[in-house]
């Protein structure tokens, strides 16, 4: 069993050469639509079958802003690798990897006594490399 907290996770974008100072990341969710198959003869409940194509999901990163970092490009197809913290007993940490592009970039606010933070939103494209989880080995 390899349960762990989120501390130690990292994310890199290998085409844009981005390695971010991440405070939190939300890996999003994959969702499969449902198709209603109920008829006038149905009883008790609506009936459903699984849809065909899943939504690959979006990932949101909240990061500390670095004045010297490269400008983030929207829409550039890239490969994201999220590396999980290496839990006890493991040699190679698990990863979430897939291709997609950045769809949203919210620059920092300027507030005294607060760090400058920015938010990045990533869309897995479901086109090149599907979002794939590889467990720790």
């Amino acid at each position, binding site marked *: 069993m390899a349960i762990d907290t989120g501390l130690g996770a*990292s994310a*890199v*974008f*290998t*085409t*844009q*050469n*981005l*390695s*971010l*100072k991440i405070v939190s990341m939300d890996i999003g969710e994959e969702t499969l639509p449902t198709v209603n198959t109920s008829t006038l003869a149905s009883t008790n409940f609506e009936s459903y079958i699984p849809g065909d194509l899943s939504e690959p999901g979006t990932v949101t990163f909240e990061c*500390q802003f*670095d004045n*010297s*970092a*490269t400008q983030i490009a929207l829409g550039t197809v890239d*490969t994201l*690798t999220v*590396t999980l913290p*290496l839990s006890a007993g493991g*040699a*190679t*940490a698990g*990863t979430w*990897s897939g291709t997609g592009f950045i769809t949203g970039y919210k620059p920092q606010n300027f507030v005294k006594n607060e*760090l400058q933070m920015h938010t990045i939103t990533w869309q897995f494209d479901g086109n090149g*490399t*599907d979002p*794939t989880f*590889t467990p720790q*080995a």
Partner: protein
Amino acid sequence: MVELTQHPAQARHPVTNEPLIDDHGAPVPLLPTQRAIRLDGFVIGYASKHGICFTIGESKLPQTVKDSAISLVESEFGTNPKVATVPEFEPSREAVE
């Protein structure tokens, strides 16, 4: 020891979603054009023809390790790689005071 290995992500069967294994019993790479940079077996970054992304900060990355990784990536992809590391913040003078 610094080494370049295949990116650890493993491809899965498009229908059954089972992890794929090749004829020699090795995992089929999900990202065949990417490499993991390992220091004594631990992944410290990733590399592709676009460059290197270290997943640890500059202060924890000895120059010799960085140089070895650059040289390995250079020989693998044939270009002088761009290098990115996790940015680290130095507290400003005002914040320290």
